[in-house]
């Protein structure tokens, strides 16, 4: 099966977290754009308050005026404003975190990823004995649990267009949920510094359509 050219983003977006190609990366990208807008608004507010400080004259300096100011600046802005914004954001962040969890389901596919200096080996419980080097095969449009570990130093499994990264740690197995909307090829890299070969420590994810995935499992294609 040949990946559909449509699914291939331009070369410049190969590793882009803001050009999502799956539900996890999509949720995170939405989170990012919203936070960016909110941050810009707060930043603007601070700048306006600063500029106004220079344009106003000196205020009264008795103790009563100071109490008044503490109400406004400490309790109003400092506590009230920041806590409201942060509480809302945290709640939303947690909710997204919930949705990214690898929950069990009927059509979840498990694959195994093992990092080493400087390559990745993938294996497939659905096709025992089958391993691939530096290329991970998955079915598109199905949730995948990638079980990640390492045989030497710490690495990190990262396919930015599909999901966030999760570390490969010797002695531990971490599970990351990924899913691709469309069949195609997606670039992956290690996201944890691992010495001199770190830069080229990448891999490719090939998402197959249903037929292609079956063919892969039965060994009809490399």
């Amino acid at each position, binding site marked *: 099966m040949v990946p559909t050219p449509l699914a291939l983003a331009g070369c*410049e*977006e190969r*590793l*882009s*977290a*803001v050009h999502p190609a799956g539900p996890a990366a999509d*949720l*995170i990208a939405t*989170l*990012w754009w919203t*936070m960016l807008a909110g941050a810009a608004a707060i*930043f603007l507010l*601070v700048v306006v308050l*600063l500029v106004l*400080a220079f344009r*106003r004259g*000196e*205020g009264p*300096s008795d103790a009563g005026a*100071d109490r008044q*100011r*503490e109400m406004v*600046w*400490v309790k109003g*802005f*400092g506590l009230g*404003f*920041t*806590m409201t914004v*942060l509480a809302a*954001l*945290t709640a939303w*962040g*947690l909710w*997204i*975190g919930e949705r*990214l*969890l690898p929950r069990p389901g009927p059509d979840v596919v498990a694959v195994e990823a093992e990092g080493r*200096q400087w390559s990745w080996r993938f294996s497939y419980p659905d096709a025992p004995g089958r391993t691939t080097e530096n290329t991970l095969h998955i079915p598109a449009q199905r949730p995948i649990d990638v079980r990640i570990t390492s045989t*030497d*130093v*710490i690495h*990190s499994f990262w396919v*930015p267009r599909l*999901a*966030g*990264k*999760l*570390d490969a740690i*010797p002695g*531990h197995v*971490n599970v990351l949920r990924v899913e691709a909307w469309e069949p195609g090829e997606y670039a992956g*890299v290690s*996201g*944890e*510094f691992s*010495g*001199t070969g*770190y*830069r080229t420590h990448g891999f490719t994810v090939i998402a197959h359509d249903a037929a292609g995935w079956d063919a892969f499992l039965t060994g009809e294609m490399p």
Partner: protein
Amino acid sequence: MTEKRRMTALRLHKALYSIWRNDPGWKGVFTTVNNNTIGNMFILGATGMFLAGGILAMLIRAQLASPQSAFMGPEIYNQVFTMHGTIMMFLFAIPFFEALTIFLLPGMLGTRDLAFPRLSAYGFWCYMIGSTIMIIALVAGVAPDGGWFMYPPLSSSAFSPGINADIWLLGISFIEISAISAAVEVVVTVLRYRAVGMSLDKLPIFAWYMLVVAVMILTAFPPMILGSLILELERAFDMPFFQAENGGDSLLWQHLFWLFGHPEVYIIFLPAAGVVSTVLPVMARTTLLGYGWVVAAAISLAVLSFGLWVHHMFATGIPHMGLAFFSAVSTLVAVPTGVQIFIWIGTLWKGRPELHLPMLWILGFFVTFVMGGLTGVMVAMVPFDWQAHDSYFIVAHLHYVLIGGYVFPMIAGIYYWLPVLTGRKRFFRMGETAFWLVMVGFHGTFLLLHWVGLLGMRRRIDTFEAGSGWELINLLASISGFVLAIGFGLVILDIAVNAFVAVRGRRNPWNAGTLEWGTPIPGPAYNFASIPVVNSRYPLHDHPDLPVQIARGEGFLGEPVRNRRETLAVSVSRGEPEFIAVFPQNSIVPFVMAVVTSIMFMAPTFKWWWLSGISAVGVTALALVWAWSGGSREDEGLLDAGRGVSLPTHNEIPHPPGWWGSLFLLLADSVLFGSLLFGYAFLWTVAPNWPPPRILEPGVLGPVLAVGGAGLASGGIRLADRAIRSDGSAWAGVLVSLAGLVTLMAAAATVFRGTTHNAHAYDATLWVIAGYIIFHATLAGIMTLFLLFRIRAGYLSSRRFGDARVVRLWIDYAVLVAALGLGAAWLPGILAEVPR
């Protein structure tokens, strides 16, 4: 009194100067214990390290200016970015604020020097020597190359066989001596050495911040020092703390490192916030709004910052509930930060801000730091962090907070305090140009790097491919990086020129209210001719003639009749006069001891254990020489402290400064011990390949020795203490205590017999626990022997028993850690024996 009236300010100055001054010439550099001199040298040293780190930053930006750069290969590049981060964090950021604090604090508090002048000198020399070693390693091409947080197993001997990692572990631990000693110094100084009447609620706000920071240093650094120690033990003796096959876990390092590393970020930010809280109100010709709120914000920031280290480990597979908790705390920490920001803005609204150069830098701080804080809240969101982690988004974020939140306020502070530092007023006006260069250069360099991070550019890659879409942004960042560097260069040049050739200025040009502006400028060696009495937060505003009164000797200790270095210590909370502290003379011992300590730390790099051992003996001997030179062989009774008050010297009070210093040193020590027990519990519950194949059986001998030793050690010193206070013979008590300590060592040594140091992480941990106990029992033993000799030489009496109290404190600590440590070591064995 009449005698004092006649003494003019000038004569008083001459008398004090001859008592407090440094040795003449070059010798003075190495023997000085004066806070002004050490502060100045320290500032110069830390600035030098900023330049070194900056040169490395330029190499990084040169390498990344274009794709497929062949300027450096990964072997060199990895050293360059590791050393850039290491130098900036450990050799510039922390030392620079310590330097400023050492310089400013006595002036702000209205006292003559810091609590332990020789410790300042020792810390400074450890810093200078350690930094020099790191730079030499860099030039020699054997610099650390595992990134500034040195994650094992990459930094373990299997994957980093050279000496590069050892240099980091040993060198940084050595340099941290200077952080710990400065912290002890600052805590005791702020608590005990202040102007009379300066109760805690009248403390200059900067001193409050530094008190908080110092306590944070004492509680945050120990986990990392422990981590470095056990990683070095793994590298040298194959004790498998971080090797999964043998029950170790590389995540243990991450916990220990970030348990330090996150508070570290606030340790760096809070001094800068202290500068802003001090300088901004003066620039706005008003007073700080909500003083109490600011103090509360600083304290809560400090407390919270210990509860969120895991946000650096969001991608390591922490369970979901844990992530939620640490994510929430990480956002919570933005609340006290927000409170401070809005209080500062409110202060500007309250006053009439003027755009002097320090104010410009503070505005630069506002704009930049707020952006860094906002991206910080973003990465506190776990899902977003999974994308941003280890990408250039993080590089951009951390420079917004470190440069915007730390470097800019520090520059504001230097310009603000320039008259106190140099006695000159700003004459050359490159400063404004430099400011704008830095602003344009900074945002040009780092703003778009956020974006390139989201486009997938990982940090720590040595180059990138053409066609990745990152070329333009990197080119812009590199060009702006050089503009930024030129800007910083110009700032340093401007300050240097103004420091050395500008015209002399007048005292207190900003019309500030705090005491550091009440001395002649630059401050003389003794800082204050007499210790002032204050009754508000801004004493110079209440009493514009206070400087003259101080200079005329109308405060406390205004008559140097005893011809020695004396200053006043006050009660902790209310600032009432309590005793006269007699300070040490100039001394070469701190410098020599720093040299020998450096050999002790660095010799293991080359596995020269014998050299390290000899140096350890040398350090001990020097420490004894150091400690011996204080004290008095006769009772002095109450002495005239001026203004009709009579006080004892520090030799004749139950808890002398040395006791306070020990107390806070032991605070740090106990955090280290606590981290060790945490590591033990962590490995047991989280690491793979547990429980260990063989568990230590406590037996009978060990526990009996432990209980007996603990009783003898703490009982003996109490007997001795009582005997000294009633002028009886203390020998028996001291010897009993000594016997108890030796018994404790024997009890701890039984652990070695039942375990093999490199068999399993369990065994290795027990060895460290036992070693820790033996080390502290030995330390207490040496002090006990020292006490014996002091008693024989007549340094103790029924009025002078402070030495015994210090030793008692250390013995009690040794007993406590022996009980806890051996209990923890034996517990699994005991549980295994209990029939189910």
